[in-house]
């Protein structure tokens, strides 16, 4: 089949999930003409298509939508903006000169030249291999997101009696989802002493269905030769070491893992982008450009978000900046490096420039009550409660960096001193 595609595009976006869709709209706002989204699935929308629960869009659309509804609004806008979407296609490689190599279900091998590229591939789930759970290797051990796809897209149940390791939001959502489908969810086991998903999900997904959450506990052994038959659960001490003397067994046929997400870095590492070990994604400037000029990153490929609304906001900006670069518009480069200080696990972007409004996303390392967040001597804000599960979003007015002559600003969160 002959490809209807052009050989040159202004902006090529890798990934048609929430990040890629918003980036396309952003690029269009910048005034570029030819925009292409490449997605490996048979349709755009990404993970939203399988997130059938509601809870999306409160910030962006000011109403509560399900994942597919949120995706469809964006897909419609992108289509009416005449962005081309190439589905069933995979970007194999990107050269430093921004030539893309694509393998496509419909058109075979393709090569395209881009003026700028937006990385929007999202993230992956951590698997059993990343935590090395001891035991046999039977069928029935899978990530929560895979089970979500099986149930919600393909209509196939992963099993009947389900245990969940890790209290990430996808695991909690799946506990409810599988309960609604008539499965027996025996419990959620979390290594840490606190739930890693949102409290609202603990309430509406576990408490509502009487599913127990076992904190400071982990799966110490997976039993069953062909199919999962039973798990040994052990409490852990403060060093997170399982205490087998106090373990107990749980019968189940399926173990879902909800143990964290990591940015999808295959293309980023092939491109040798400078990475940030704290976010797991590439480092970016305040216009979301990576260390390779012309390559931008947004959404979960940059850092794992917990709200799609923030993904959309970030990606609209990334797309706009990518569009500007594609048509030869260059803003002054950043001159202030931004660093994570006390109690801060990560921050994005990693540098700032005084000429534009900045949006900074960050996470704290541990739950903190009554604390003050500072950015150098430029910014200060008090918080009643900060938890690692919730990303913090700050906007900094351009004036804030006026006449700042340092090279570095540090973000710190400190407990408010008792007065």
């Amino acid at each position: 089949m002959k490809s209807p595609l052009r050989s040159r595009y202004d902006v090529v976006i890798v990934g048609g999930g929430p990040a890629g869709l918003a980036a396309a709209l952003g690029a269009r706002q910048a005034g570029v003409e030819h925009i292409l989204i490449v997605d490996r699935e048979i349709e755009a929308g990404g993970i939203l298509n399988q997130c059938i629960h509601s809870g999306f869009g409160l910030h962006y659309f000011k109403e509560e939508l399900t994942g597919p509804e949120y995706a469809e609004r964006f897909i419609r806008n992108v289509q009416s903006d005449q962005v081309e979407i190439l589905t069933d296609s995979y970007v194999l490689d990107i050269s430093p000169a921004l030539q893309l190599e694509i393998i496509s279900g419909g058109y075979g091998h393709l090569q395209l030249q881009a003026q700028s590229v937006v990385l929007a591939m999202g993230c992956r789930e951590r698997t059993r291999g990343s935590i090395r759970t001891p035991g046999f290797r039977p069928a029935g051990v899978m990530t929560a997101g895979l089970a979500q796809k099986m149930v919600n897209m393909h209509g196939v149940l992963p099993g009947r009696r389900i245990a969940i390791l890790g209290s990430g939001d996808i695991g909690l959502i799946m506990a409810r989802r599988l309960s609604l489908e008539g499965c027996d969810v025996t419990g959620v086991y979390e290594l840490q002493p606190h739930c890693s998903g949102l409290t609202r999900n603990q309430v509406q997904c576990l408490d509502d269905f009487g599913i127990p959450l076992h904190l400071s506990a982990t799966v110490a052994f997976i039993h069953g030769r062909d199919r999962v038959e039973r798990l040994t659960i052990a409490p852990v001490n403060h060093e997170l070491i399982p205490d087998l003397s106090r373990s107990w067994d749980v019968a189940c046929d399926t173990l879902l893992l909800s143990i964290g997400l990591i940015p999808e870095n295959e293309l980023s590492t092939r491109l040798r982008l400078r990475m940030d070990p704290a976010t797991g994604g590439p480092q970016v400037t305040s216009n979301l450009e990576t260390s390779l000029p012309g390559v931008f990153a947004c959404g979960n490929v940059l850092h794992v978000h917990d709200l799609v609304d923030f993904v959309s906001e970030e990606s609209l900006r990334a797309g706009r900046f990518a569009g500007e670069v594609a048509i030869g518009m260059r803003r002054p480069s950043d001159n202030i490096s931004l660093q994570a200080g006390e109690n801060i696990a990560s921050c994005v972007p990693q540098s700032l420039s005084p000429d534009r409004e900045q949006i900074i996303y960050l996470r704290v390392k541990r739950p903190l009550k009554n604390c003050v967040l500072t950015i150098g001597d430029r910014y200060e804000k008090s918080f009643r409660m900060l938890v690692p599960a919730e990303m913090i979003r700050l906007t900094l007015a351009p004036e804030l960096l006026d006449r700042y002559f340092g090279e570095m600003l540090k973000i710190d969160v400190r407990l408010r001193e008792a007065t």
Partner: protein
Amino acid sequence: MLEKRRLTCIGCPMSCPLELVIIDGEIREITGNDCKRGEAYARQEYTAPCRMVSTTIACNSGLWPRLPVKTVTAVPKAEVMAVARALHTLEIEAPVQIGQVILDDIAGTGIAVIACRSLPSAPNSK
């Protein structure tokens, strides 16, 4: 009789911890909510808790075999399982439009169920 009740607002990801002061079965004070939706939630949750139900139904000859659907408003919490069970018996033919009403009244609750996405026919189905 004075009673205190703790709830977590599920109105948004903030998950505010709410505290209700109840005197003789009547709410006198609600604290802990960051916005006014938290207060409405607290009243609703104390008097008649309800939840949105989202699930999927079978879709014949669609691009995917399942269609995501949801109740247009929250249903009484006690009815959630019955609503889910009733929905699981439904089938629909592709194509489907987003917002299309699948059923006006699910499981006698008087609440309608709508499609959460458009689902075109599968390319190879006639």
